[in-house]
């Protein structure tokens, strides 16, 4: 899967695994890739930070999304205190992250780029219609087209 990924894009994918583990998630999901991207020196990371998505801000937004989603079905998950990382096994790739990476590959192909970089991962993440990432971007008032334009 990662053969054509450039070094910093591989690093982003690897870091997403640590982010997922740190948040106690059994799988790496698209939102973990977003946190990882927001931490990178690559222009894709800078673009996220320019619109206010610092790594910690993305982590907070993930938690707010979780609480908001449960709130809509009448469950108050605010202050739900669960161990941050009680799993010691490495998280595997979840569907949403795999899909984002597949979309990154397609995005590179569409643009005629040989290699897959951080900018393609961000574009792959921005293509999702449903799930945590599009929902939290909407909630944070992020204009996806404007963000794409910064790349």
């Amino acid at each position, binding site marked *: 899967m990662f053969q054509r990924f450039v070094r910093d894009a591989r690093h982003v994918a690897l870091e997403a695994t640590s982010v997922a583990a740190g948040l*106690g*998630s059994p799988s790496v999901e698209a939102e973990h890739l977003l946190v990882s991207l927001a931490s990178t020196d690559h222009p894709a990371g800078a673009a996220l930070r320019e619109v206010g998505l610092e790594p910690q801000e993305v982590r907070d937004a993930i938690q707010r999304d979780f609480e908001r*989603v449960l709130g*809509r079905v*009448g469950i108050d998950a605010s202050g739900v205190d*669960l161990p941050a990382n009680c799993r010691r*096994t490495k998280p595997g790739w979840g569907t949403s992250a795999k899909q984002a990476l597949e979309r990154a590959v397609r995005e590179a192909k569409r643009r005629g780029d040989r290699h897959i970089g951080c900018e393609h991962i961000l574009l792959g993440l921005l293509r999702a219609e449903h799930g945590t990432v599009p*929902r939290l971007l909407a909630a944070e008032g992020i204009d996806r087209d404007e963000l794409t334009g910064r790349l």
Partner: protein
Amino acid sequence: MPLLPAELTHPDDPADGLAAVVALRRLADRMEDAQVERALRDGWTWAQVAEALGVTRQAVHKKHARRLRDVPAIRP
């Protein structure tokens, strides 16, 4: 009588309902991790934990034994 009022289990927008399913699974998984660990630390056996969760001992052991290797109370 339904367990929860209809407006809670049937939000207007399917996107809200489906997102809630995902969040509830995540919440349940996290809770399971924490509660299984707590029970074992309190001296519960795998068989007791399995019975309380309504699953087989093999199932609960397979899912949690590896990550809870260091809990002293654990007997295989």
